[in-house]
């Protein structure tokens, strides 16, 4: 029942959207056309490029900080959360602006892949480092005592075990990329998300938009299925707690330096872009009135916290139900409910408007609904992966000892899921603070948030005015990542 309810809530906007696409009097289902094809190609290249680069960077840093010891490791570990705190559209806007002041035209696919990898590799890092530090510790120790070197034990033991988590991270970041709008537009890369919006809003062709949205959905479905297959192939239950002292591979000399450089580079680059901009054009900085800034921040914070609570509860419910009722229908429903992540935020928002407008639902409610729908997958992905590491025998033991399912949840699953749940909450929080299209489309009168203001200024080509609220978004992101330190430190 609960699964049905949550999935239904997640699906309603989509259904109303499909209805519009099918029954409106648009220009008819147009073929993709040359524009459509270049948009599909652009998005595919972005997904593949970002997926590869993000996977390599995220996994490397995840491994280094989880299993090796070198000076500054703890700090560098926490620093990996910095890039997530920066909205990609702001990075793009400030980089383009900085470049153009130096006579450099920053434009095109390569820059887009680099920027998006920078903005999204943290997904891979977070999920893989979690896996590296929890799973297969004993196997690793055993392999080391048998004389297997660090590289071999990485490729032959740790990597296969971590593959589901890495896959989940790559899938999440790739979905961000499919959805990315502001940055790719500024960099002049044709993309599905822009194509969907333009067809819908500019050409007045909802069917054409629905067609493109279908292509985007397909790409994401392929991503998710691929990740599933990976996970199935390497499913291993593993429940070694944080007991005992974990030996870390000590790195020294050039090895330590290389590790430090690898871990420091991405966060440094992210911070460097706005800092370079400010250093070059600080005279152009325009401060928002402080009271206004406070109001913007208050709204962002309240929305993000509320949305995080709603989303985490929904995700937990779905993940747990999926484990308990191992019926294919439940599995499929919970899979489909997560697809909201694949749909461009603005399209999702339109679905909610079409559906919620006539019912007279409060805009704030619609807004929270939209966030929950959009980010359910973010919270769920990590939970699903973590639940799969818990052997079913534990549930069975608990049940046979007379625990009801509520007790099993409270006494067994929740404590074991604490880490991934916290990571999920953090990701949702940061995502909501940065979120743009849904907020832009659904917020009530006089209810701008930080992200909205940043985007409005940036799209007016006033990067100086955008910097103030943008720095606040970054601060929120950093504060949220501080909340994660205990769970990272627990094993460090």
């Amino acid at each position, binding site marked *: 029942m609960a699964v049905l309810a949550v999935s239904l809530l997640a699906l309603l906007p989509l259904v109303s959207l499909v209805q519009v696409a099918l029954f409106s009097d648009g220009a008819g289902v147009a073929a993709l056309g040359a524009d459509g094809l270049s948009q599909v190609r652009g998005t595919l290249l972005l997904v593949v490029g970002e997926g590869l680069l993000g996977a390599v960077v995220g996994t490397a840093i995840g491994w280094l900080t989880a299993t090796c010891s070198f000076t500054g490791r703890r700090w560098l570990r926490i620093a990996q959360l910095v890039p997530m705190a920066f909205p990609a559209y702001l990075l793009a806007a400030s980089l383009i602006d900085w470049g*153009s002041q130096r006579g450099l035209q920053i434009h095109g696919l390569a820059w887009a892949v680099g920027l998006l990898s920078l903005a999204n590799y943290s997904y891979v890092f977070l999920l893989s480092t979690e896996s590296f530090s929890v799973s297969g510790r004993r196997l690793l120790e055993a392999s080391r005592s048998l004389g297997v070197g660090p590289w071999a034990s990485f490729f032959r033991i740790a990597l296969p075990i971590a593959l589901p988590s890495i896959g989940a991270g790559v899938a999440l970041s790739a979905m961000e990329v499919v959805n990315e709008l502001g940055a790719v537009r500024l960099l002049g890369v044709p993309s599905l998300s822009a194509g969907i919006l333009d067809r819908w809003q500019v050409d007045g062709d909802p069917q054409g938009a629905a067609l493109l949205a279908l292509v985007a959905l397909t790409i994401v479905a392929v991503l998710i299925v691929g990740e599933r297959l990976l996970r199935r192939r390497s499913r291993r239950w593993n429940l070694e707690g944080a007991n005992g002292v974990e030996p870390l591979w000590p790195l020294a000399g050039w090895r330590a330096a290389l590790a430090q450089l690898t871990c420091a580079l991405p966060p440094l680059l992210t911070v460097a872009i706005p800092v370079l901009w400010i250093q070059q054009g600080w005279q152009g900085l325009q401060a928002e009135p402080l009271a206004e800034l406070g109001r913007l921040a208050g709204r962002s914070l309240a929305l993000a916290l509320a949305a995080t*609570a709603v989303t985490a509860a929904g995700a937990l419910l779905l993940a747990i139900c999926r484990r308990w009722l191992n019926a294919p229908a439940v599995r499929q429903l919970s899979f489909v409910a997560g697809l909201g992540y694949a749909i461009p935020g603005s399209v999702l928002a339109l679905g909610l408007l079409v559906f919620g407008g006539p019912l007279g639902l409060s805009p704030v409610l619609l807004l929270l609904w939209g966030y929950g729908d959009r980010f359910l997958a973010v919270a769920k992905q990590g939970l699903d992966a973590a639940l799969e590491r818990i052997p079913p025998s534990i549930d069975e033991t608990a049940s046979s000892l007379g625990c009801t399912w509520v007790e099993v949840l409270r006494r067994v699953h929740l404590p074991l899921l604490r880490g991934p749940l916290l990571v999920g909450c953090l990701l949702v929080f940061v995502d909501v603070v940065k979120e743009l299209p849904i907020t832009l489309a659904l917020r009530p009168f006089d209810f701008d948030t930080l992200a909205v203001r940043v985007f409005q200024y940036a799209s007016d*080509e006033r990067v100086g005015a955008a910097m103030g609220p943008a720095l606040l978004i970054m601060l929120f992101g950093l504060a949220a990542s501080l909340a994660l330190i205990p769970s990272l430190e627990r094993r460090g």
Partner: protein
Amino acid sequence: MKSIHTRMAGARLSVATLSLSAISLTAITGILEAAQAQNRPQAVNVYSGRHYNTDKDLYAEFTRRTGIQVNLLEGKDDELIQRLKSEGANGRADLLVLVDAARLYRAQEANLFRPIRSRELNRDVPASLRDPGDRWFALTRRARPVMVNTALVNPNLIRTYADLARPELRGKLCLRNRASVYSQSLVADELVRRGAPATRKWVEGVVANRKGSFYTSDTTMVRAVGQGQCGATIANQYYLARMLRGDNAADRDAAKKVRVVWPNPTHVNVTAGGVTRAARNPEGARRLLEFLASPTSGEGYAGANNEYPLKGWGNNPALSAFGTFKASPVSMELLGRRNREAVQLMTQAGWQ
């Protein structure tokens, strides 16, 4: 271990409390907002595609004079149109303010505006800058001149937009991308004045003359001209004015090297507003529109973004330095009507 556990529990508890209070906070805001809207039948709700803090001063001035509260929702033009469309008869906006003729036409075609009769608006807004059916009225004007680096391009070469296709300019032109509504409306202007065959030839020539990739912002193009990477570009006048009047020294220096060349005639576009069909306070919306279009506040509305008022040239020193121009006679309505055709033509001629 234990201390960590208690800490974690504490953290969880505080997160939960925070979330709960946030939920109640947002719920309360939502309820308050709804209650406020009901208690103030007088208020005018505005959807606006402009984002200038100084606009709010003007709205406050309107409230001071009339007692009518203004509720504001700023967004991207196309998104606001879509929002209003999907809200249908439940639409929350009384006044819709949009930038660019193409968007106004889109909103008009979606039947979002209602015609209004107003002697003041007919007096203050020239006929070519308003809808012939009285559904929307311009509030400010902007122009899209050619900007030249005189060290690289002889400004005397350029007397009309057509001259930008001259072979002498090969590899010297920086162009804004097709996705920009500014480019689209410029080509629509040419289409109306010179017909499809001539415009197609012109677009092909201009595209052949371009240097590098198409740009996604006007500011970067103006900079590129100032720095000498391009000889010429076409950009809205306020971007150059903003750089000249801004606090960034490097930008000011670059902008000083840019010469504005006014093609005869020059393409002009508008910010305009109209009372929505779904308006619950059409009377208040009309009064706000009249207030914004009036010469005194029009100057303020235009000044925020270094734009031109509806009539005359205003008193902005940066704009005065650019000189005056002969505006294209093409009406805003026609620019919107020919937009789709312009985009098709650009696509076929390789304007990306």
